[in-house]
């Protein structure tokens, strides 16, 4: 029962969420971008399952298609952060000298980068004609690259601890190479930590994409994203269009599911 609550339910939620996003074309009746201008802010009905937004676009479609963007950005960015963190952390952990100090210093540096401003600056210098997919890739890359430091530091520490263990030293003395040490001794110890970090970073990065888009800096209109859906809610007058808040319960459940799965609450790491 306890396992089901802590693992089964979150996994089930994530699977359903992922399938809904993938099957969006099948599960929706309207394009997320078509404006039914005679029906702005329409209430949920048989025609529009979750109603329409201020421009008369189907909220259900925008929720599912928007989820692809927001979750996609989170997945890509979290994967990038963890991969870079794993690579840098494992290499630094194995090294006792300059490399470790260099990686830790770089991590400190990246933690101090104001990535929001960095993103603004990068966007200003890029060509204007960027498709939503390119913007998504850009967002994910910047968020992911800027966020490697946290997992990187943790993984470095863990790798350094493993590196000091007797069986690793014995293997090294017997002539095991660096790659062998990483593959056979470090990775099995580091992967659970990397997975935990991934699960912790994922909701944060999804929220980062939502926040950036909410403030008009992410994927622009008319492409759907959860941030675009929520953006009109910044004004207190949008009380008649509460269906726009539909990404909120999904986001809250995502954070909870990832938290439960990461084992963070149980204090494993």
């Amino acid at each position, binding site marked *: 029962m306890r396992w089901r609550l802590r693992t089964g339910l979150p996994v089930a939620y994530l699977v359903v969420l992922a399938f809904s996003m993938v099957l969006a074309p099948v599960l929706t009746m309207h394009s997320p971008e*078509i*404006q039914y201008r005679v029906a702005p802010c329409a209430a949920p009905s048989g025609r529009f399952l979750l109603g329409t937004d201020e421009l008369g676009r189907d909220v259900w479609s925008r929720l599912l298609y928007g989820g692809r963007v927001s979750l996609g950005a989170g997945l890509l960015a979290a994967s990038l952060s963890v991969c870079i963190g794993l690579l840098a952390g494992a290499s630094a952990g194995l090294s006792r000298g300059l490399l470790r100090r260099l990686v830790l210093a770089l991590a400190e540096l990246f933690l101090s980068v104001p990535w929001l401003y960095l993103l603004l600056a990068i966007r*200003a210098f890029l060509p204007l*004609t960027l498709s939503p997919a390119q913007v998504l890739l850009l967002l994910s890359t910047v968020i992911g690259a800027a966020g490697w430091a946290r997992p990187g530091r943790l993984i470095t520490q863990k790798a350094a601890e493993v590196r000091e263990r007797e069986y690793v030293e014995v293997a090294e003395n017997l002539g095991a190479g660096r790659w062998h040490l990483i593959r056979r001794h470090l990775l099995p110890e580091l992967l659970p930590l990397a997975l935990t970090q991934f699960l912790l970073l994922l909701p944060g990065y999804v929220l980062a994409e939502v926040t950036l888009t909410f403030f*008009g800096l992410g994927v622009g209109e*008319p492409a759907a994203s959860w941030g675009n859906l929520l953006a*009109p809610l910044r004004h207190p*007058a949008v009380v008649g269009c509460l269906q726009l808040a539909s990404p909120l319960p999904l986001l809250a459940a995502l954070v909870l599911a990832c938290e439960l799965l990461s084992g963070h609450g149980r204090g494993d790491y």
Partner: protein
Amino acid sequence: MPGLWLESIDVVIDSGREFRRLPAGCAKRDGRARPAWSPVLDVVWGRALPLVAGALALVLLRYLGGCGAHTANGRGGRLVYMQRGEPRTFNPMYALDDASHEVIWRMHADLIHINRETQKTEPALAESWSALPGGTGFRLNLRRNVRFSDGQPFDADDVLFTFQAHLDASVNSAQRELLLVQSRPIQVRKIDRYTVEFDLGGPYGPAERIFDSIAILPRHLLEHSYKSGQLPGQWGLATAPPAMAGLGPFRLKNYRSGEGLVLERNPYYWKQDSKGATLPYLNEILFRQVGNEEGQVLRFLGGEGDLLNRVSAKSFALLENDAKARHLDLRDLGAGPEYVFLFFNLNPANSVPASVAGKQVWFRDARFRRAVSLAIDREAMVRLVYGGRATPLATHVTPGIRMWTNSKIPPPVRSVADARKLLAEAGFRVADNQPLRDRDGRAVEFTILVSSSNQQRAQMAAMLQQDLKELGINSQVAPLERQTVQDRVLRSKNYEVCLFGLAFGDADPGSEMNVWPSSGPTHVWAPSQQQPGSDWEAEIDRLMRQQMATEGYGARKRLYDQVQEIEARETPIVSLLSPNVLVVARRGVGNFRPAVLDHYTLWNAEELFLGPEAGAAK
């Protein structure tokens, strides 16, 4: 004032209805000023004509006699004004932002003032004026016995000093450009202690409007700084109130960043009400700064303020719901001076990136621009983005600039069929459900640049995309930070199409001289050209210069009408809509007569007073 950037503002409307000031006790219904007890009239009308005639006579008398500024029953009190940002300076020579202007113009006065309500000039510190022979300038007779807010007397030397400082290029006054006529600085001469002559070098269309918004500065306080080159550093936010003086109705009492700014009554103010009582009525105005409109609205609903300037249609709708319960006086003044428009990059091909130059073949064809204009559903934008509180535009002259609109230009009507015909005429390949292609078979597509901080613009851009799709045009929206948008349009010229907003700085075409002549720095589609890029631009240049050098409203209007006709024909900008000016006051604020020009609710601050209802409303 020159045309202004309008990227952070989006506001108010009343679909061109006539707006008249109303006395207390009058209500505004169905767009007409009617007395609050007019339903009684409706009943009487059917029964006794003589009674009706008598009542009408009473109404007329009341209207004629009482619809101007009311004298206050009670003086004193503190009015709380909700301000969107902190002022950056108290120095009128260097103020560029709205927040600074809102404060500064309560502390200073000009020689001749444009009445924001009538949009006409009226005497201010100059009690009368006359044109010089040949119409080359003006002789101004100054008011006597006028004192600055520190008690020092005002005379022609202060006027001379003010204009000398503004016109001195080394001072870098933000208003210097306004005092150049045909690129030459105006000449100022003192005739006697209360008479000054201004030589404009030739006939000047806007005439005495040139004196509006030039604050007369106290020579006794600033001359030393001017001579020592310290003027730019004077009257910053840290300046102690006694070190400043002005000729406006209020003076600075205190300012604490983050807490608010208090202006107090100027005891030496020169203006009087119709009964001869000195103005202003209020003792103090508190400027309370709230960083964003949403916060302002919520705090206003919480009873924190008395006046709210220029809210968005969404906020207006929210406040409207609570207007009765919270005793709010909401006014929709109709189209303001702002116009939101779309324009294409028409800069010379050698000054733009190659990718943009390739698309300029389409942009330079007026039929293409007109087709885009025809395909846009402006009515839907007004309805969905502005909740009906905006006016669709055919040209850049909004109904708010009522003296200068060309009534012969028909209102914009959407017609995708006509747009397709125009495109076919221009050699484009038009086919149902197929991308639009040019003569060479290239698919027509472009990117629309838009400010990311303006939600209405983002929504309008999304609607544009769908409208253009009906022509087979595939467009993308690029939301960028406001400053980046301006930089790309005016400097790097690295953009294809842009959705933008500008505002008339004054209800006079003179304020558009930085926009419409091809050499204008804000001639957005091709700024600061050495030579006009086309014949029609050369014709606009000629007409704009001619109207600036022509005297008389009628003659100038005819010239400006021609500019608008060329604009409608050539469509250098696709005018979309003008947001309404929407303002709010707590009921009980007397003489609340907002105007569509700046500063909307505050322009007559000296006449505002707090009636007994104001306290109860809070």
